[in-house]
């Protein structure tokens, strides 16, 4: 891991937060009422290449930025994305096993972040689980992220200056 990778990761996180709060924010591009969670996707994509401590800190920072620029209490997205970053670090070796595993991983990790945010929001009186469309609100961003991963993951891999993951069967 290099300083360049950290700088690229921070730039990507800031860009993702700005996109999330403008283009993919509530009321703009939201097919079927939900948008991809770009910030979560960028955290998952970048943390794969970072050491554990910076990786966890990136998750926390991205979440805190979302909290600061959103309507939720401070700390909710920070907590969710810290967990997402931590779990990503624990399972990142499984990415070598091919695209189906990566797709399942992206879906599961995004869903984990959404569920943690919804549960945390409810614990802190935000009534997020009272939302009748809560399942749709959690599942759709996970699906969109899985689809977008096909574009974002190779791009991040290139930007981070590491080669594409070599599949076991191709070695």
């Amino acid at each position, binding site marked *: 891991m290099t300083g360049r990778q950290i700088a690229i990761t921070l730039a990507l996180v*800031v860009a993702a*937060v*700005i996109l*999330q*709060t*403008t*283009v993919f*924010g*509530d*009321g*703009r*591009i*939201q097919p079927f*009422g*939900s*948008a991809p*969670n770009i910030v979560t996707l960028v955290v998952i994509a970048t943390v794969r290449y970072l050491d*554990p*401590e910076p*990786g*966890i*800190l990136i998750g*926390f920072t991205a*979440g*805190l*930025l*979302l*909290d*600061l*620029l*959103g*309507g*939720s*209490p*401070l*700390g*909710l*997205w*920070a*907590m969710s994305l*810290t967990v997402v970053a*931590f779990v990503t*670090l624990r399972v990142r070796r499984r990415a070598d096993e091919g695209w189906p595993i990566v797709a399942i991983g992206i879906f599961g990790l995004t869903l984990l972040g*959404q569920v943690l*945010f*919804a549960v*945390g929001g409810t614990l*802190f*009186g*935000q*009534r*997020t689980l*009272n*939302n*009748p*469309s*809560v399942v*749709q*609100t959690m599942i759709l*961003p996970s699906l969109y992220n899985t689809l977008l991963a096909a574009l974002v993951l190779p791009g991040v891999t290139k930007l981070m200056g590491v080669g594409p993951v070599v599949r076991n069967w191709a070695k």
Partner: protein
Amino acid sequence: MQSFRRFDRSTTLFVGLLVVSFLLATFDVRSQGEGVGNVMRDGAQSLFSPLQDFAVAVTRPLVGFVDGVSNIAGLRDENERLQERVIELEALVGDAEQLERRVEELERSLGLDPPDDLAAVSARITALGNSAFDQVRFIDKGSEAGIVKGQAVIDENGLVGRIDFVSNDSARVRLITDPQSGVGVRDVATNETGWVEGQGLDFPQLKMFNAVEEVTAGDRLFTAGGRYPPGILVGTVRSTAESEAGFALITDVVPAIELSRLDYVKVIVGWSPLDADVDDTGTVTTTTEPPSGPAEVEGQ
């Protein structure tokens, strides 16, 4: 051994950051968005506003294109819906004039004239909530323009929401569709009062606890005073409903505003809940004092 130590360090950091997040959320909720959280939000808003403006400007054509495509996809459904609506309206047209007179009479008797004379500040939407959980909008005017927490936000169609966070040059609007939002309303057709509660992505719900008459699809609901100035259109009743003994009347409401098309809004700065006087008959009247401060105020 080294990897064990590393695992240990990262786990400790992870647990530490979870504790920090939990404490931040606790303090932020307890302080109701004031204090350190307010300062941090203020700083972040100031820092990111120019970048967000730039992103909105650059991506406007893309958003417009996607909007247009999704409109085409929904055109057929919309056409069928409109045809059904025309049939309904044709059936209603005979009673329309009579109903209109009745509404005007009720509005006069209740002091529910739309608040055209209230001082307001125009603002532009600069950013949105970051997920479907977040039914908020950010505007480009803040305390420097006389905006304070709690003020009502409207557009040309009706009630948008209310201000729930203010910095110097921006503010956050919590929309009426947010599950944390509640608006006291009056059905002008029946004079019954109730409560419209946000449901996130779903239609807001109207709840009436002591309704005697039924509410009919198409009934217009106006703010009844309290937290919001009276007489602002909130929405229309989506489906007819009546209360059953011992149960509240609950039905869906179609908001008057089009949330996906909000671009400019007005913040009513010339009214606060303290301005409302309720006389013995329950009629709400308002005063329209202009705000103090250097705000560029309209509507006076």
